[in-house]
């Protein structure tokens, strides 16, 4: 009798520990989307190819703490680019170390014309804040510069000229949460671009879009305000 009771207690502990081990840590994530990992990249936001070469893009992107699958990462950023391997961007980044420990940074990333990429990491912005993430292409100095809230993080030589602007949230598996929930959408306000020879920042004013509309959402609130979210999450 006594040994049966001990066995039941031990089994109860094993069940409890097993349950704790497989459930996501709710305190560390806004929402667990409960989707299978597939290792594919997903985007939500907007982009535009202006009629004149762009020389700058900016947006006040809300810093969010999404659920990040093991060893994956979630980002949100502004970007100038010229096709698949030529881009220059700044944004926030959240990474999982493989043990459900999340670390966050602001980051910049760019490529040259020879197939090399460069990434730098800086202290993160506060969750819930909406810093202005801005990328500039200086046509005279032929140089990139990246800033957060007007503070220039870095400047480096540019080796190609941008044609397109993008403002996106990005995940690297279906199992990640796209930043935001349908009742707490991540905002991208004051989304503007400026063209070569222009002196005025212009509204992006293009349609919002997502890679997979069955799991993510994106909405254009007005010409300069966008929002993105994960359909599996309310907050």
């Amino acid at each position, binding site marked *: 009798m006594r040994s049966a009771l001990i066995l039941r207690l031990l089994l109860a502990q094993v069940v409890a520990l097993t349950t704790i081990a497989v459930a996501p840590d709710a305190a560390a994530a806004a929402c667990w989307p409960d989707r299978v990992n597939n290792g594919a*990249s997903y*985007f939500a*936001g907007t*982009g535009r190819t202006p009629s004149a070469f762009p020389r700058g893009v900016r947006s006040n992107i809300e810093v969010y703490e999404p659920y990040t699958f093991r*060893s994956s*990462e979630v*980002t949100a*950023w502004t*970007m100038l*680019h010229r*096709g*698949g*391997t030529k*881009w220059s*961007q700044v*944004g926030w*980044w959240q*990474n999982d*170390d*493989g*043990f459900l*420990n999340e*670390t966050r*940074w602001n*980051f910049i*990333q760019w*490529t*040259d014309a020879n*197939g*090399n*990429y*460069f*990434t*730098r*990491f*800086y*202290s*993160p912005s506060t969750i819930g804040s909406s810093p202005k993430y801005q990328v500039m292409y200086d046509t005279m100095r032929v140089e990139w*510069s990246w800033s957060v809230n007007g*503070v*220039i*993080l*870095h*400047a*480096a*030589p540019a080796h190609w000229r941008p044609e*397109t602007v*993008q403002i*996106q949230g*990005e995940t*690297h598996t279906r199992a990640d949460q796209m930043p935001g929930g349908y009742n707490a959408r991540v905002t991208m306000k004051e989304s503007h671009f400026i063209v070569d020879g222009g002196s005025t920042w212009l509204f992006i004013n293009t349609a919002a879009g997502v*890679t997979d509309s069955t799991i993510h959402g994106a909405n254009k609130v007005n010409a300069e305000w966008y929002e993105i979210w994960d359909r599996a999450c309310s907050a």
Partner: protein
Amino acid sequence: MLSLKVTGRRYTVTALLGCVLLMMSGPGIAAPSQYDSVLLTEEDLKAHGLNLQAVSGKDSPAVSAEDAAATAQSILGIAARPADTFRILASAMPGLTPQTAWLVLFEGGALPPSRGPAGSENEFKPRYTGVLIDDRSGKLVYWFEGGSVSP
């Protein structure tokens, strides 16, 4: 200065160069006078926007190269030994006065935070990870990565 920590990132370290070059100007320690990393050349550093300046004549570092390397490993959350360690002059951000720092270099790294523009499908080969440690305070200035990208 930053004192934040990255823990446990995946790394695709493929091999160690097996050679740690130290440039220290403390008493009793040999001091190579030139930056000559094979992993990350001076041209590579310029592409990163990091233009080297001479450190000769600067005060001796308060932090040793070994301690800087240990800090770098802790920040990155890795156990791999550095491929190279050099003392350089660097600015944390444009416009700031250059400061002496330890540049700790590791071969390889994790995949970059972003895979590029929406709609692109790129392949990445991380080649190096660098960490700049203030040689007076021992704190992180910034860290960086790089490699090759192809469609």
